[in-house]
């Protein structure tokens, strides 16, 4: 990953956190003095290197892990905002990336019962819950949205 793509990635993440949502190519282009085409091609290279995930249908950002650009079953309140995480791992990851405490809201995929966790000093307040990862690590990126 060259320094231009590292810079593009950094600006993209920074805007995601500032805006509380995925930035558009136009917004990133405007802040970096790039064209939208340059941003889009840079995002494609970052996607290929698993540094972010694009929506295949629109080339917009789908994931800037651990953040999700689209609504998911994992909502996280952290740093004064509500965020969507891509999965349970990423829900804790949002607190980790922002270096703040937080609140995670989801539901048990089996019974549908609401699950709420407070994360304080990197620790969940309910240790009784379990995390299940279905896909082996070697296949996570075969289909990262499914994973």
């Amino acid at each position, binding site marked *: *990953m060259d320094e231009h793509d*590292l810079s593009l*990635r*950094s600006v993209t*993440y*920074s805007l995601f*956190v500032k805006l509380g949502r995925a930035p558009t190519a136009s917004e990133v282009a405007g802040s970096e003095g790039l064209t939208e085409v340059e941003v889009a091609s840079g995002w494609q290279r970052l996607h290929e*290197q698993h*540094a972010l995930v694009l929506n295949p249908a629109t080339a917009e950002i789908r994931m800037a*892990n*651990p953040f999700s650009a689209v609504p998911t*079953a994992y909502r996280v309140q952290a740093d004064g905002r509500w965020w969507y995480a*891509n*999965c*349970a*791992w*990423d*829900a*804790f*990851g*949002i*607190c*980790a*990336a*922002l*270096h703040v405490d937080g609140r995670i809201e*989801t539901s*048990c*995929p*089996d*019974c549908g*019962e609401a*699950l709420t*966790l407070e*994360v304080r000093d*990197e*620790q*969940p307040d*309910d*240790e*009784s*819950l*379990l*995390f*299940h*990862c*279905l*896909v*082996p*690590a*070697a296949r*996570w990126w075969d289909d990262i949205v499914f*994973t």
Partner: protein
Amino acid sequence: MNLFRSEEHIERWLGGREPGATISVGKLSELAHAWWSDRLPPVWQPRTRELNQVVLDRLGLDEPFWQLA
């Protein structure tokens, strides 16, 4: 990658599918903080697969399921 109430809920949700790996939510939080805490600073550099594997290994996630390749 989901949270569940208990092993019983995981088993029922799997419905006969091959199970993956289950860890405590406390271990998950440790993993997430080790994995994601460096994500936002501008000096971030991509981690190699080997370094990612070290993160998993250090948390005791060293079974074949957690091997990145």
